[in-house]
């Protein structure tokens, strides 16, 4: 397929490539406006963002490839970038034009990726971005000299202010007519001789000569499990021989590619860059505080406190508004429906399900706005720097801290936030333990049980027994999360510890537009991918609690009627069926039913107990429900059905059990989707349930043995 065969009216395919922190996303937004589509690459959590761009009378589709330092196909991000650019991706055709986004402030390091891109032989344009910041740092870069050195057009841009974009569009439109770029330097004779057999074998596999030369040089330093080598094992002996020859010539195969490229880069930089006296170095000054031995950790704690406050407390009013709007809309439509099953499906199934989905949106938006601010300003890498030593104790990277903390508010956004963790095993371990962090939906259960069964007495000064119990539940969950993470990282998810090699980018003002667009993408992905599943599962749970219909005798008060109905439903019968299982941990069938129904959302436990005890619309602070619970008797023995010991066992059960379909759905999506994802979600649900059961058993039986029952 040749480029010329495509009609001139077909949209031009443009790919944006560049290092992280080059302003690539801002440039992408400036070029495409809000006409964007976001999706995941199949099987991985790398996001695929596509937009449209007008080039005079032509239209172009622009793909924003994941930020990468090189084309070595190490992480999933890099593998996707490499496949797309070489045209070997099963998901996307090769681009017609590559736009290499180069950070003018860090020209040397950025030219490394650029020199690899040139060798792909595709029409290419370099956007020399952030020239304003480079000028402030005392770097004057000559775009003409750079154009001559690279052999492709170089356009100076400031994406944040829209400068240079017209020239860039023009260069993109004209790029296919220019001579194809090629390697602007040549291999030393000894390297060329060593690589030749490997290069020829690659050409025989169908690679164009330029790409074969690039691949041969890349494979010399690539790890043994490089996808190219596993796909063509016949290349391995050729590579081993080439490495032997290079070593014999006194070269290091692991770094020979970088040495040759940086030799060329040093030459280019000498010609194209003039260094003037640098201006004020804001980054160094800010770092002197942010990374200070004492001030640094304090600032970090303050920021995390702010984040915690935002997702815990500030999201609440917005969530209440969302809930009441959904409910009043639901009721408005419900009043048009006939009384009966259809109306029940609408209000208790669909509207409740939609509410269950939308209620997460404020927290997700706030969390990702915060994460975006931390990431785009340059702080996130510093947080990882400060925390790395601490988190390594449990085997997790510094970046796992923010998702774990977010888990106190809600596991759903927290699981989504693990996307900033690069290593797959680290990310899985974090996802698996996030639900141990006591989320805000557990609070109503703790409040009901503590308020009912723990006396409001003071332990010491203003510290009450009730408060201490609540703190104990939070500490139990947190301690378990860290312990289980350490366990997983040493067993199931053991891997070579990855070296922490991370750039600390210069501080920048985050671009508001880029931030808003990013938050929008996250919310859209959540609604489309997880939201649909949550809605479906909510309707299924409604059906299980509603069918089969019970024959309620005429004249039964409504409260008793719904109690009667719940008992007769599949869920009610299941609750009775599992009673022998939950007896040893001190629960009766009523608690069993409430636990099952709380899969919709943990706080539903409270309203289900309310239904069973005929207290309509019960909340965790309803005195009526509290009285009924204290007064409840075991029909067999006549002794109180619920004791403080049962309440403790129940709270411990909720600390551990993953009773939340929303979390299950999000975990399934974020661990790979499809069968793999659902297997991880099922595994997580099973081990957390087992842990919950054993812990509740220990509390209840241990307590009884000590005579507290």
């Amino acid at each position: 397929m040749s480029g010329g065969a495509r009609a001139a009216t077909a949209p031009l395919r443009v790919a944006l490539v560049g290092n992280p922190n080059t302003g690539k996303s801002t440039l992408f937004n400036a070029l495409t406006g809000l006409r964007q589509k976001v999706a995941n690459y199949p099987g991985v959590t790398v996001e695929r963002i596509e937009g449209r761009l007008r080039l005079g009378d032509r239209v172009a589709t622009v793909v924003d490839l994941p930020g990468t330092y090189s084309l070595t196909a190490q992480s999933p991000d890099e593998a996707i970038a490499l496949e797309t650019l070489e045209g070997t991706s099963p998901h996307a055709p090769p681009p017609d034009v590559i736009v290499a986004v180069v950070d003018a402030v860090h020209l040397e390091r950025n030219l490394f990726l650029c020199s690899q891109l040139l060798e792909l032989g595709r029409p290419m344009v370099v956007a020399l971005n952030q020239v304003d910041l480079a000028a402030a740092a005392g770097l004057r870069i000559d775009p003409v000299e750079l154009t001559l050195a690279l052999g492709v057009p170089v356009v100076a841009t400031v994406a944040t202010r829209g400068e240079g974009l017209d020239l860039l569009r023009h260069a993109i439109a004209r790029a296919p007519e220019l001579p194809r770029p090629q390697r602007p330097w040549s291999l030393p004779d000894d390297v060329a001789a060593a690589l030749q057999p490997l290069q020829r074998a690659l050409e025989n596999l169908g690679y164009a000569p330029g790409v074969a030369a690039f691949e041969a040089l890349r494979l010399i330093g690539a790890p043994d499990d490089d996808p190219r080598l596993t796909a063509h094992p016949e290349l391995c002996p050729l590579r081993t021989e080439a490495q032997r020859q290079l070593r014999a010539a006194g070269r290091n195969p692991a770094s020979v590619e970088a040495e040759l490229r940086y030799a060329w880069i040093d030459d280019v930089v000498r010609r194209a860059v003039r260094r003037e006296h640098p201006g004020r170095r804001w980054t160094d000054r800010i770092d002197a505080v942010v990374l200070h031995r004492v001030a640094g950790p304090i600032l970090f704690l303050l920021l995390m406190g702010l984040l915690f406050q935002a997702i815990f407390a500030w999201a609440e009013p917005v969530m209440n508004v969302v809930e009441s709007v959904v409910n009043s809309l639901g009721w408005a439509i419900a009043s048009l429906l006939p009384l009966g099953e259809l109306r029940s499906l609408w209000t208790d199934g669909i509207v409740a399900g939609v509410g269950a989905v939308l209620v997460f949106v404020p927290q997700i938006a706030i969390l990702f706005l915060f994460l975006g601010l931390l990431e785009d300003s340059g702080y996130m890498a510093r947080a990882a720097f400060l925390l790395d030593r601490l988190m390594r104790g449990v085997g997790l990277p510094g970046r796992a801290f923010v998702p774990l903390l977010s888990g106190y508010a809600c596991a759903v956004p927290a699981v989504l936030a693990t996307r900033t963790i690069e290593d797959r095993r680290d990310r899985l371990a974090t996802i698996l333990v996030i639900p141990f962090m006591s989320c805000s939906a557990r609070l109503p259960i703790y409040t009901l049980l503590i308020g009912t069964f723990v006396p409001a007495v003071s332990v010491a000064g203003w510290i009450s027994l009730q408060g201490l119990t609540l703190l104990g539940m939070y500490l139990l969950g947190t301690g378990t999360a860290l312990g289980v993470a350490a366990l997983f990282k040493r067993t199931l998810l053991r891997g070579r510890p990855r070296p922490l090699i991370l750039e600390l980018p210069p501080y920048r003002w985050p671009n508001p537009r880029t931030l808003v667009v990013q938050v929008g993408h996250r919310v859209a992905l959540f609604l489309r991918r997880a939201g649909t599943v949550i809605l479906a599962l909510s309707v299924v749970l409604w059906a299980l609690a509603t069918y089969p219909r019970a024959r309620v005798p005429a004249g039964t008060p409504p409260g008793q009627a719904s109690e009667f109905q719940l008992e007769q439903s599949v869920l009610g019968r299941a609750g009775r069926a599992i009673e022998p299982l939950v007896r040893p941990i001190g629960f009766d069938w009523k608690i069993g039913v409430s636990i099952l129904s709380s899969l919709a959302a943990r706080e539903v436990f409270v309203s289900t107990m309310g239904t069973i005890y005929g207290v309509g619309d019960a909340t965790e602070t309803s005195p009526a429900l509290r009285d009924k619970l204290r007064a409840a008797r075991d029909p067999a023995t006549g002794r109180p059905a619920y004791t403080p010991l049962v309440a403790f066992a129940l709270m411990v059960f909720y600390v551990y059990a993953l009773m939340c379909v929303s979390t299950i759905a999000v975990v399934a999506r974020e661990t790979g989707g499809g069968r793999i994802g659902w297997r991880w979600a099922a595994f997580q649900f099973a081990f957390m349930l087992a842990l919950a059961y054993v812990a509740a058993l220990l509390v209840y039986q241990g307590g009884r043995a000590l005579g507290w029952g």
Partner: protein
Amino acid sequence: MTLASLSPGARGRVRRVEGQAELQRRLAELGILPGARVELVRVAPLGDPLEVRVRGTLLTLRRREAACIEIEPEVAA
């Protein structure tokens, strides 16, 4: 002498990079190659990792990796 044994603020020139091939390649891609000038900017509050300046870029490395980078210390001017 290795990069890990420099004191904050001190500079040097890379002589050799040791360790696994994978680590050598990743460091090389970021410009940590024989002859490159490096500066140990600071140490994290808990003693690890380290902040390093190389080719105008700030990077963080753990002590373990920094100990693979053999350097020729520069005498402070």
